């Protein structure tokens, strides 16, 4: 699949990838737009010449020029990373593994630092995309925090039951279960649900 130039409707022939502060920036230009912007790429030129060219044009070093033919594609659905960047959508579950290296920095940014799944898991687990070993149950917080939090939550549960606030009690019970099963991470920033459960 041919890509369109970032600035006009012609097919892109020059593909530039820059790393800046760990963020991957891609440019896809046609010959004309590339020339206008002083970006040129001769696929056969030796790499040091290319680098020199970029340096003299005042472009930050650290540039790789990736010819289209060498762009990696997902082995399962043949989506290229460039296609993903255009549509913002992946082609299949295996894309997560195929583009792991490129996706992770983007994911971390989009997910505000989140890197690992915490929460519900399917009972019948069809593993795909993640060759990584099963993540251990979130044990980020020391056990003592966890125990203290559980104790506080159980107390809140008792209070809720005593006050006949059963909706709230059910909610707390589910949360306790979540912590016990390791589905809910324990962080000191989130105290147990105290709203309405404390002494009246």
């Amino acid at each position, binding site marked *: 699949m041919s890509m369109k130039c970032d600035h006009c409707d012609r097919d892109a022939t020059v593909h530039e990838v820059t790393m800046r502060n760990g963020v991957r920036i891609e440019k896809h230009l046609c010959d004309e737009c590339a020339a206008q912007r002083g970006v040129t790429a001769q696929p056969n030129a030796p790499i040091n010449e290319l680098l020199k060219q970029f340096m003299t044009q005042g472009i930050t070093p650290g540039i790789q020029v990736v010819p289209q033919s060498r762009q990696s594609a997902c082995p399962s659905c043949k989506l290229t990373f460039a296609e993903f960047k255009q549509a*913002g959508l992946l082609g299949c579950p295996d894309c997560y593994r195929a583009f792991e290296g490129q996706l992770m920095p983007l994911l971390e940014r989009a997910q505000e630092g989140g890197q690992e799944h915490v929460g519900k898991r399917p009972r019948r687990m069809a593993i795909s995309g993640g060759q990584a070993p099963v993540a251990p149950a979130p044990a980020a917080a020391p056990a003592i925090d966890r125990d203290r939090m559980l104790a506080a939550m159980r107390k809140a549960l008792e209070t809720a039951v005593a006050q006949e606030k059963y909706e709230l009690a059910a909610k707390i019970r589910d949360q306790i279960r979540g912590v016990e099963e390791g589905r809910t991470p324990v962080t000191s920033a989130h105290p147990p649900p105290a709203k309405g459960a404390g002494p009246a």
Partner: protein
Amino acid sequence: MSDEAKQPGDSAPQFDRGAEWLRAEGESTDVVFSSRVRLARNLAGMRFAIKATRGDRQQTLDACREVILRADFGARVMWADLHSMAPLDRSLLVERHLISKPHSKGRGTNPAEDPRAVAISVPDERLAIMVNEEDHLRIQCVRSGLALSQAWRDADMVDDQVEAGLDYAFSPRLGYLTACPTNVGTGLRMGVMLHLPGLRLTGEIEKVKRAADGMSLVVRGFYGEGSEAVGDLFQISNQTTLGRSEAEVLRMLELEIIPKVVEYERVSRRELLAKRRIGLEDQVWRAWGEVTNARLLTTDEAMRALSLVRLGVVTGLIRPADVAGQVEEGGAPKKALDAQMVNSLLLFVQPAHLQRVVGRDINQEQRRIARAAFLRERLTGLALDR
């Protein structure tokens, strides 16, 4: 197979009553319209929308259909193939927040015939499962008022039931794998639809938006992404899905953030009543004048006016007794004016619903006339009380 037992004879959905999110029942309904939980799920080994062939899409649809119609969600489920549904009926579903606009339109080179569907629990419409939207499955559970725990429990149960018959694409490290990486992890979007006229009138709404932004929440308009907050209706939901459990998101929204926004709106309303009462009364009653007298109304005009009428009703500036009476000769009084009635009008002034009321396709100009006539008809001859 119990397909037929669960499918109504008519492929066109019958919507005579209000949707769940308009019911004005439950907690904090002076401010909160509804609570919504959405789970994005995909089938293992199946390509996502942009790489799927028509055959793939059909296969996904068939697999999901079988499991969904066999499952026991504790409600009657209607299955609707969108590719064989009339455009007006699809628009009705969009207006009722049961499917998204892209799902109504379809994908690929021949969007109209793109195999896609929605399963809806009837008649409550609390559950809607979109099949072959951006993800293979989008499970949505809605409850009236502030009831996120309940909506989450519903969605969790439906998810378990669906999962019992299908293999989900899941990675231990990244969680549920979704077409867009912004949903990967829990695949969860949890949020509420709020009516915030007080914050808009006091100009505080921008502060709420900024605060929400700082807490990785999204504030969107009535029809979701990119839509304007017409009628002072805002949706607030979580933004991130990786690294935070469902329980954590639920706790943050239901116990911390939403109650604060609700209180903030109530304070704004109280302040308006205390300090700018005559100004507020004027706006509310002008809006009443507009919906009961105008001869031409666009959707936005109607929604803006109805928003102020709703504010008037929930703050007691418009009491049923103020607007009751005026029954036409021979006509029986309708029910008394209340928040639920206004909610339902907000839905019925939408283009597809209005055309459903009129009973035929009409153009935009005719709709403006019909909309004004519809509101006049509904809002005159009201009862004194229920």
